[in-house]
């Protein structure tokens, strides 16, 4: 299809009679653009409508300036240091946002109004140049690339020694370049002894072979009477730093079951070879680290004896070996074998038998 500007003539830009816009139009023509309309949005100069628009835009810029100044003043003079209680400093951030927001909004809308209302309205048409390059250009470049490939490729084909040398000599260099970048990162998850994937802070190996106490987060040990019937407490291994994130797999939930629930729980635990004899009295301890994705399964529902993980709502039945009964978790929470040492404090009889935490490929 033909557009108008195919027919429009090139003009001689050195012609002194040309207006500036005519020169602009000639430039556009050279860029395959036809300026169809370019007209003021107002009738006549100094129309009432135009004056109103100009006033509005000026007002927006003024407000922007005032809000900008206000922002700086607030920034400097408003009490900003955090204080407890309901103080002026609570409003520091809101007042900054409000003043800067208003300033930028007014500036933005002022500019928009200027562009949309004051500048002449324009419709221009520019040609696209889709499709490939001219066929001869395609051919020349294609042949050039083939020429290059041939020079290199055939050179190698004709010289088998070079081929072998490239394969054997340069490939290792590539590996050598990658090795220090990646190699330093690689860590063997099975390297430690005892293996970190399969042990927690309750492993006596971390306590000079002695059984590890159950402690509160401040490191103090626990006696059975510290947890009331129906109560629960998060406990940590009683080793240095046992309650820190160093031992992120160790947090354990110690629950003092009501007697009737404890009977059910004990029956179920004793029916299971791995959990047999792990309860101590009416006390039961499960790993708090959800077997799904590792969140602390921390919401204990006393009435239903369920433990709910807040992350993806897996639910575990406390009285039945913490079997998952709802949600995405597939594996029960490991049970920590409990006992009490000579001083009457809770200790882990041994480390967890089941692997704690989220599941992985080689978990036995």
């Amino acid at each position, binding site marked *: *299809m033909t*557009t108008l500007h195919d027919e429009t003539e090139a003009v001689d830009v050195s012609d002194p009679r040309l207006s500036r816009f005519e020169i602009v139009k000639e*430039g556009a023509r050279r*860029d395959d*653009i036809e300026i169809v309309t370019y007209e003021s949005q107002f009738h006549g100069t100094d129309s009432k409508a135009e004056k109103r*628009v100009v006033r509005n835009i000026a007002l927006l810029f003024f407000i922007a300036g005032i809000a900008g100044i206000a922002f700086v003043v607030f920034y400097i003079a408003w009490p*900003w*240091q*955090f204080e*407890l209680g309901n103080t002026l400093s609570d409003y520091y*951030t*809101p*007042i900054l*946002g409000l003043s*800067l*927001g208003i*300033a*930028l*909004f007014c500036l*933005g*809308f002022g500019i*928009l109004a*200027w*562009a*949309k209302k004051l500048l*002449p309205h*324009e*419709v*221009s048409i*520019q*040609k696209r140049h*889709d*499709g490939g390059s001219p066929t001869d250009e395609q051919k020349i470049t294609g042949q050039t690339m083939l020429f290059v490939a041939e020079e290199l490729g055939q050179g190698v084909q004709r010289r088998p020694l070079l081929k072998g040398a490239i394969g054997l000599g340069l490939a290792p260099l590539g590996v050598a370049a990658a090795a220090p970048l990646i190699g330093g*990162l690689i*860590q*063997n*998850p*099975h390297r430690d002894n005892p293996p970190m994937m399969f042990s927690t802070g309750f492993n006596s190996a971390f306590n000079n072979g002695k059984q590890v106490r159950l402690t509160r987060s401040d490191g103090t040990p626990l006696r059975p009477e510290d947890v009331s019937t129906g109560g629960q407490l998060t406990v940590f291994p009683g080793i240095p730093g046992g*309650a820190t*994130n160093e031992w*992120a797999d160790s947090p354990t939930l110690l629950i003092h079951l009501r007697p009737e629930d404890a009977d059910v729980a004990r029956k179920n635990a004793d029916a299971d070879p791995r959990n047999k004899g792990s309860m101590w009295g009416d006390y039961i301890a499960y790993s708090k680290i959800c077997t799904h*994705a*590792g*969140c*602390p399964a*921390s*919401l204990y529902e006393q009435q239903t004896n369920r433990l709910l993980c*807040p*992350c*993806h*709502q897996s639910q575990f039945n406390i009285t039945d070996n913490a079997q*998952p009964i709802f*949600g*995405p*978790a*597939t*594996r029960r929470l490991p049970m920590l074998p409990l006992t009490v040492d000579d001083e009457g404090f809770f200790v882990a009889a041994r480390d967890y038998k089941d692997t704690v935490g989220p*599941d*992985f*490929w080689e978990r036995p």
Partner: protein
Amino acid sequence: MKRRKVDLAQAPVTLAKGVDERYQVATPLRALLNKVFPDHWSFLLGEIALFSFIILLLTGTFLTLFFDPSMQEVTYHGPYAALRGVDMSAAYESSLRLSFEVRGGLFLRQMHHWAALLFVAAIVVHMARIFFTGAFRKPREANWAIGVLLFLLGFLAGFTGYSLPDDGLSGTGLRIASAIMLSIPVAGTWISASIFGGEFPGHLIIGRFYIAHVLLIPAALLALIAVHLGLVFKQKHTQWPGPMRTNTNVVGERMFPRYALKQGGFFMAVFGTVALMAGMFQINPIWLFGPYRASEVSSASQPDWYVMFMDGLVRLMPNWQIYIPIGNGYSIPPLFWPAVVGLGALTTVPMFYPWIEARRTKDKAIHNLLQRPRDNPERTGIGAMAFTFFLVATLSGGNDVIADKFHISLNAMTWAGRIGLLIGPPLAYFLAVRVCLGLQQHDREVLAHGVETGIIRRLPNGQFIEVHQPLGPVDDHGHPIPLEYGGWVVPKKMNRVGALAPAIKGFFFPVEKPAEAPVSPALPPVTAGEQREEITSGR
């Protein structure tokens, strides 16, 4: 005495000449100043993403001046009394310092976070615009793929940033990320140990995420954004069909002065929006969450919105574990499917959509005219399907909050999500296709019979008829000659054909002036897109 005259008016000319002598910029610069851009409000969505990215760079750089990416244990002694004496990582302490002890620090932190939310939101809506209008078709397939990559990078940027303050929420997110790595068959434990530098959480992860967050990911984003915009520039923007608009031209405004000025104004407005939100609406109040402790989590701990769909998919996944009874036994945990396979598929399969569609429709043509969503019901249906999936997954990411607020059982919410995820998308597909066909039908009716005028006429024989205003010429009997559909808005109200003034009056015109859009008999007929056959067959 002859004084050398300094002609100030000539100075810029001399300077410009000097520059051109050295760099020969006159012609390319003119081409740039003259470049024609089509205009439509939906073309601004990508710009919002770009502007929020710029804001992210500015505010993020400020944050780096104070943030300390270290997992060293320190004890807090700052002004926030509730945490005084608490042990925490230096990263968390420095984030608290940014919030409480740096003048305007909280404001910039919140600006950074709001800009991040806006960034990803703008990317998603922009992608929807590209998808539903078919702007990804040849020759723009590669730019669509780059766009999908930009979303993935934005997601990673957001996730790494969210993890940096090392508060209760970010630690929980990291823990889940580690579990996701562990779930990968065979290599899982190796990957997790290598990334965390040992067992979770170790001492390195914040530092590693930090360098990814402030250098690697922004650099990749910057490079891809540059290529993305470069391609838009080179291939020229698509445009809607309309008067004078064809597949081989661009109808709009030259970049300067008006178009560029509008962009500048729009940037300021976006900047202002982010500033207002940052000031008025609290986001990520890390001091309330406390430092990360492996043993603590609060319920209703939600990630940022663009991560919620992942969380939702993970919640909805049934507990299907694959056991492989060889040797000690091996297993693939259910987490693997939504989090690794799911995220992988959701970010790679869409990348290939342009080629898939072109193959299905055997379409090799170049498309510079956009399609209205109704004109390609199948694609619109697929898009509706994808968005329904995303919506159900995202809502399920907050299903505990919904259950709590509306007193619904949580298990019921989970089941509703599972069922919704399966039947919602097909249903959305079906509905979207029906709606598209209905809208198409109505367009054709108006083109054939004219606009309903609301005027009822009584014929001499007593019959009542409604008068229709034909949109084009009429035949000898006064019946409208059916018009062809041009792929653009068909005026359906009398004020759209100039019988009444536009409904919106005032300081600002509506974004697209109503008088421009409809086919007016005075202008040359609309040149239809080359897909017209397909369109009118009402597929």
